[in-house]
């Protein structure tokens, strides 16, 4: 007599390891397996045969996971985009609020440099948070690793395959850290580039300062966000295709 509970536990553990399915999604699939086994056993089938049949009819978890990923994907894209935009708005907001608070609190005659210094508090806080987060991501990937690796060829899901490896998390953390540090350094020299851009654009295109400022404030960051988004999508597609 087959111990169905034991089989269900093993099936669930394997499904959890080889997929990105949530506990609720696994609950639903597990319930389905149980329903089919119960029905087959009630019709007189041996529990072992009923179990094997139910698992076969349910299908492999990897393709199911892939289908679920397709359903979830637009949400993920939207969520990430929203967070990127929110981060940018928060970043700009903190800078402006810090500058205003410093200027009004100090009153007339207060050195404007101090206001600028306060404005940088927001910037530095964000830098510190990002830096800490990236270090944690890189270390977690390098030290703890991910979930155990699934057998090669048993899954068509690239996320499932990546879960078992330590290097992706470590590499992504390290690469992001490198990009962040490089861009943080570039901020210090960014003013020179901005000045050069202003001068070049105003001479070449005849743009007034208003339009140049508008470009810097609105379009340049929007383009940067779009570029990051497109790079991320292409990387994801490349990995999925491989």
């Amino acid at each position, binding site marked *: 007599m087959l111990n169905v509970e034991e089989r269900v536990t093993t099936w669930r553990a394997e499904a959890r390891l080889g997929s990105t399915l949530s506990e609720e999604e696994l609950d639903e699939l597990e319930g389905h397996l149980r329903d*089919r086994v119960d029905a087959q056993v009630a019709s007189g089938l041996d529990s072992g045969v009923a179990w094997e049949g139910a698992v076969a009819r349910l299908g492999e978890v990897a393709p199911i996971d892939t289908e679920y990923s397709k359903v979830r994907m637009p949400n993920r894209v939207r969520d990430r985009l929203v967070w990127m935009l929110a981060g940018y708005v928060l970043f700009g907001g903190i800078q402006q609020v810090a500058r205003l608070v410093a200027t009004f609190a100090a009153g007339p005659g207060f050195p404007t440099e101090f206001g600028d210094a306060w404005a940088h508090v927001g910037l530095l806080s964000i830098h510190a948070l990002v830096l800490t987060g990236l270090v944690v991501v890189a270390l977690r990937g390098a030290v703890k690793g991910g979930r155990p690796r699934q057998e090669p060829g048993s899954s068509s899901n690239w996320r499932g395959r990546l879960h078992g490896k330590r290097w992706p998390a470590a590499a992504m953390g390290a690469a992001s850290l490198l990009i962040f540090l490089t861009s943080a350094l570039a901020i210090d020299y960014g003013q020179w580039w901005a000045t050069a851009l202003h001068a070049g654009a105003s001479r070449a295109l005849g743009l007034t300062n208003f339009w140049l400022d508008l470009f810097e404030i609105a379009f340049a960051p929007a383009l940067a966000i779009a570029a990051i988004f497109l790079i991320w999508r292409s990387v994801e597609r490349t990995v999925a295709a491989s």
Partner: protein
Amino acid sequence: MSSKELVAASTRPLLLAVLSQGESYGYAIINKVHDLSGGHLQWTDGMLYPVLHRLEKEGLIRSRWVKSEVGRRRRYYELTDDGRVAVTEERLRWKSVDLALRKAWRLAAC
């Protein structure tokens, strides 16, 4: 046995049609479709659930967890108002396909 493409294309209207008869859960829906098709439509059971979740995301159905008489949690799905409209639209679409095929076959038989 139906072709893979036909099974895929008919999944959505079938699910909506089955749920238009009242709320149901995955295993019961598959059995219902199996019975309705006389066993000709064979779905891979697990593939049903992502489709149900897609329909839910589109707002055509909604779900709730219910404890069964044997104490097992089951996720029941039912049509929303938009889902009822979608059933009507699907019915019209498939009727026109059916009509066109019948006419074509009749002409071919002549």
